[in-house]
């Protein structure tokens, strides 16, 4: 219910942009977003939480113009072994998630300045 009001109040227009850069939106990001909109996270710790999520930055190519600027580096392509990479992915996710979980459950998370107060 609050999300549409939040978006209406704080959204940034993306009209006129070809590339949008932001936090990588994977499951760790949605974990943080969910806790945030449920008023489980104090906004003061949000930047630290996002960093702990080990999210990195992702780029969204929004327009035809942006795609046309891409160049393929065939020599940079690598074939990777699922059985080698998947455990690394799982471990990285687990470590990031445990760090976020610990921060959310710590005294640093005062839960005073929360999402619903932003509306």
């Amino acid at each position: 219910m609050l999300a549409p009001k939040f978006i209406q109040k704080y959204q940034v227009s993306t009209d006129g942009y070809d590339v949008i850069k932001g936090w990588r939106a994977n499951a760790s990001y949605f974990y943080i977003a969910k806790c945030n909109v449920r008023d489980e996270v104090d906004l003061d710790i949000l930047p630290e939480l996002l960093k702990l999520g080990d999210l990195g930055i992702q780029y969204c190519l929004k327009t035809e113009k942006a795609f046309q600027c891409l160049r393929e580096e065939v020599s940079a392509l690598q074939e990777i072994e699922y059985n080698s990479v998947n455990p690394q992915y799982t471990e990285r996710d687990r470590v990031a998630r445990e760090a976020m979980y610990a921060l959310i459950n710590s005294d640093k998370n005062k839960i005073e300045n929360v999402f619903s107060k932003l509306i």
Partner: protein
Amino acid sequence: MEVFSESYLEDVVENQGKLFEYAEEHCPGIDVTDFIEAYMKSHTRALIDAGQAYISTMDAEDLFNYFLKNDKYEPRQGTAAGGFAPNWIGQFYALFQWIYKMSSKEVVKLLPVEFMFEAYPGLHDLDLQVAVYKVGEQCGLNAS
């Protein structure tokens, strides 16, 4: 059995509840009892038992599609359960699996889906963890 990190627990519990609810809503007339049993015994669920992050963090819809594709499950026609029972059973099973460190396959063998539907009226008003401990105690299990 080693269980996945507690930091995934809330999401796994919630998503499994939503998965069972989604199955019934998405496939009208589905035999949801069969779906739940097949899912709990599936390779998909075994990956979550093992803490595979990619599967453990999927939402209900993605999990549903992943299960159908990777376990080659075909929904069967049956009597709809309706109501909140499928969601609650999903959450219960997920929490029970984690607390008692059992595989999901063993959980559904110990607590068949039909039993869970019968037990739902008496248990669902309790706090979920309390309900899990109550049933676990009846089964002679110890939560470590």
